[in-house]
Structure formats: structure tokens, C-alpha cells
């Protein structure tokens, strides 16, 4: 009890506070937990990248942070509140303060881009406002501004199924710019983008988060980009946090061990590999 009150009083300052959090997928009880004893504290306005090989639990972690996956055990605080002991409606209100941008852009193919982007405002809108906006978009100017930050201004009135994969991904992120969330959870925002757009996209996300003093948590496959843009790197492997360090302290050996199946405790790789490691990682992803 004292532990819980301790953490919650400390957590008022924190955007996220996870203590020994274990998460299991809903479908299979028998499978090992997707996240194991996760220990993570994130301050408001902090930017961090989550890296790790496929299947490490990055997406599950974001699902947990966005309150769409209930943890099995451990302590979990969001903005100082325990979401899973709140009432259902209070928890849903809390969800409106978080924004999850999934890896596959969640845009119905037959919807217009302007409607899809403005859908970010739904938690604030009344049902009537939402209905009217389906017929006459409520704030096309704001949608256009969000889109043009990702070079998509000319697609405002296109239908989503006319967009390319990369355009859809950026359209999904333009929706993020219109939300009023205080924590932005972005899953693999660059998976369909070329290097130049990747730079633009990450820079836009970081600037937006900084402007509204929001927490930004971003999973990334591109380790080099994560290291270049994010001050704090959290590495996941097989559902456990392998390291959680400022980027200056992340070494090529650590990255190599993370991706090439060597347990962290085993010896560092031969010297000549150290130099190539980031390249090799970028290459195989």
C-alpha cells in the first residue's frame, strides 16, 4: 500500500510510470507474456525511441501505454492515475489524452483525407458536431496545415484509397498533429517512407511534441535514425528491457547484441564488426 501511494505521489510528475509490469496477449493464456517485468518511467515532454528486433514487444508496449491492453500484473500509472482501477468512462477520458498512431495507418479506404485527419478531434466533439463534419468538414484549414507539414497539402480532398502507402502513413501522422493528446505514441512511423521523408517525418513529430510539451514515444526499426534523433533509447528484446540509456551511452556492441541474438552478458563481438554493426542492422531491416 505504501509502495502504491509512494509511486502515485511520485507519478504526478510523470507521464508514465511502469513498475514490474507484465503484459500477456488476450488470445493465448498459455503463451509466455509479451512483456515481462517492465520498468519504465517517462517524464512529461520527454522524447524516447523504443528499438528492438521484430517480436520484441514494442507494439504491445505501445498498446499498453495507450490503454488498449490491460497489463496482467505490476504497477501502471498514467499522468499519476491508475487507469485500470478507474471507472470505464474515466479511463476512456484518459485515452483522449493519449494518442496512438498504429503502424498500419487506420484510415478507411473510402474516406476522404480531410475527414480521416479531422477524426483526431472526435474525442472533443459532440456527436452532432461529428455528424455535421461528415457532411461539411469542420475545420479543413487545420487539416490542410497538418497535412502540409508532411508535404501532403494537395491531398486534402482526395480519397484515402487514392494515396500511396507512404502518403497514407503520413496522413495517419497528420491526424496525430490535430489531436490534443499529451502523450504521442507512434508505432513504426517510417516503415513505408524513403530516407528523406523519414527525416522530415521524425523532425516534424519531434517539433510538434516539443511545441505542445507532449511526451513522444516512438518505436523504430531504423536504429541509426533513433540514435540520431532521440535523446533516450529503450531497447526491448523478447519482452524485456535490455537497456534504457541516453543515446550517448549506447554502443555499437549493445545494438549488435540486441539484434543478433547474443545475450547481453556474453562477450562483445570481434572488433571489426563493431564498426559495421549499425550499417548491417540498417541493411537487414
Amino acid at each position, binding site marked *: 500500500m505504501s509502495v502504491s501511494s509512494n509511486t502515485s505521489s511520485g507519478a504526478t510528475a510523470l507521464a508514465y510510470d511502469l513498475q514490474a509490469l507484465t503484459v500477456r496477449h488476450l488470445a493465448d493464456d498459455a503463451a509466455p507474456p509479451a512483456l515481462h517485468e517492465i520498468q519504465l518511467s517517462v517524464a512529461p515532454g520527454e522524447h524516447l525511441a523504443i528499438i528492438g528486433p521484430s517480436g520484441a514487444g514494442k507494439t504491445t508496449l505501445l498498446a499498453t501505454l495507450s490503454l488498449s491492453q490491460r497489463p496482467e500484473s505490476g504497477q501502471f500509472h498514467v499522468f499519476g492515475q491508475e487507469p485500470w482501477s478507474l471507472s470505464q468512462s474515466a479511463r476512456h477520458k484518459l485515452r483522449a489524452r493519449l494518442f496512438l498512431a498504429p503502424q498500419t495507418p487506420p484510415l478507411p479506404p473510402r474516406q476522404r483525407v480531410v475527414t480521416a485527419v479531422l*477524426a483526431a478531434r472526435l474525442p472533443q466533439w459532440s456527436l452532432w458536431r*461529428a455528424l455535421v463534419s461528415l457532411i461539411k468538414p469542420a475545420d479543413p484549414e487545420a487539416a490542410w496545415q497538418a497535412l502540409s507539414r508532411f508535404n501532403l497539402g494537395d491531398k486534402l480532398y482526395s480519397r484515402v484509397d487514392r494515396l500511396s502507402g507512404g502518403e497514407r502513413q503520413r496522413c495517419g501522422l497528420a491526424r496525430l498533429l490535430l489531436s490534443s493528446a499529451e502523450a504521442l505514441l507512434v508505432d513504426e512511423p517510417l516503415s513505408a517512407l524513403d530516407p528523406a521523408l523519414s527525416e522530415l517525418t521524425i523532425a516534424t513529430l519531434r517539433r510538434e511534441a516539443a511545441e505542445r510539451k507532449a511526451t513522444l514515444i516512438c518505436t523504430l526499426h531504423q536504429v541509426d535514425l533513433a540514435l540520431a534523433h532521440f535523446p533516450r533509447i529503450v531497447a526491448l528484446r523478447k519482452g524485456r528491457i535490455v537497456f534504457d540509456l541516453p543515446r550517448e551511452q549506447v554502443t555499437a556492441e549493445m545494438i549488435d547484441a540486441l539484434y543478433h541474438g547474443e545475450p547481453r552478458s556474453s562477450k562483445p563481438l570481434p572488433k571489426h564488426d563493431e564498426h559495421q554493426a549499425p550499417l548491417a542492422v540498417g541493411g537487414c531491416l
Partner: protein
Amino acid sequence: MNTAVVQLRHPDPAWRGRVMLFIAFAVVLWPVLVISEFKPWILFDQQSIMSTARFLADFLTPAHSAEFMSMLVEQTWQTIAIASAGLSLAMLGAIPATVIMTQRLSVSSLGTGRMHALSAFVRHVVRAVLVLLRSVPELVWALIFVRIIGLGPTAGVLAIALTYCGMLGKVYAEILESSDAHASDTLLRNGASRLSALLYGALPESGAELVSYTIYRWECAIRGSVVMGFVGAGGLGQRMDESMKMLAGSEVSSMLIVFVLLVAAADLVSKILRKRLG
């Protein structure tokens, strides 16, 4: 030789099941045919061929006298009105039922996979009501309403409204459940309400299917109102019943042509709307 060996090495695990299924079907279906007195050869009996021929010969010259035509137009209009009014009433009940039933849009199951006990109970109740509504055929509803409120179109409208409410609610919910949940799910996860997730996530995914199913049901309602006309629920069916009893093949023929035109029109509307939405 070679192929035989190959077959032995890779026996199709599904083959035996398929053969057994086929035999089971045959065993079940034969008694069904016997019980239902399926005797198509009766159609070719000498006497029935004669009377059928006379009746059918009349069909070649559809009735088209001015008096008959004005009656036909009026009755056609009444049939369309019965079907449309019945279907609109059905939708009034079906849409809220769909919104309640669709599990996709459940906020309480978000993250837990389990629905709140109360909402699960409400869902079951709504589902049961819909089953009840559609398990009674519209013809039976029509007979009941003809007894209660007398002959006329009102009985037809109410009968269609009740049965089709059950059908529309069930199928709407199934269409929504079977479409891609990603969009509506993400909206819910980001704090949108149930109805706005429906409007911005689920409807754009499956709007075209919903519209085309509704128009198909409108088409069915037209046909249904004809059948119900035979028990006195108004519209073309009631006239057709009279013409049938008088063996007036030419009148029946004209009415059948009108049915074909109505169904074709419904098909056209559906196609146009699907094109616009899809």
C-alpha cells in the same frame, strides 16, 4: 506407377472427410425429397398441361386497357409505398439495435477482451428480440395484423417492419463485424465515443455493403408485400390474387412484368449507389 507412389506418400488428409460429407448429404437429402413429395413429373400430366397452356397463352397478351392500367399504376404505387414505409420503420428499429449489438464498438472490452456484464446482457436481449422478430415470417405477421386492424396496406407495412427489423439488425451487425476493424478500433483506442467510431471508422469501411444490402431488402420487401397481398394486406398482390382466381392470365402477366421492372429498378439504384460509395 510413379504417380501411385506419389499419392501414397502424400495422401490428401481432407479426401476421406469430403467423401463422407458427400455421402452424408445424399443420405440426408433423399428422405427430404420423399417427405416434401417432390414429384416434378406431375407437371407433365396431360390435363395439367392443357390448363397450363391455356393460362399461359393468355400471358402472351398482357392486359393493357386504360382502366386496367390506371388501376395497375395505383396498385404498383401502393406496393412501393408499403415496401418503403415498412423498410423505413424496420431501419428505425434496426439501426439502434445494430449499434448496441456490434461488439467491435465495445468500449468496455477495450484492453480487457471482456465486455462489461451489463452490456453483454443488453446485447443478448437485443439479439434475442431480433431473433424473435425475424423468426415469425412476414406472412404470419400480416395474417395477425389483418385480424387485428383489418384488410389493407397498414397490415403489410407493419408486417414488413417487424420481420425486416430482425433481418436488417442481424445482417448490419454482421457486416460491421466482418469489415476491417482497424480504423474504428484505433478511434476507440484514442478516446472517441462509440457512435463517433461508428461514423468515422466502421461506416466508411462498410457503407457500400450496408447500402446494397438495404436496397436488396427493399427489393425483397416489394416481393414480400405482393405475397402478403394474397392474405389481404393490400397492394398489387391483392389484385393479383383476384386475377389468379379468375384465371385472367393476361392481367397476371401485366403484373408480373411490373414486378420484373420494379426489381430491375431496385438493382439499378443499388448499382448507382454502390458506384458512388465504392
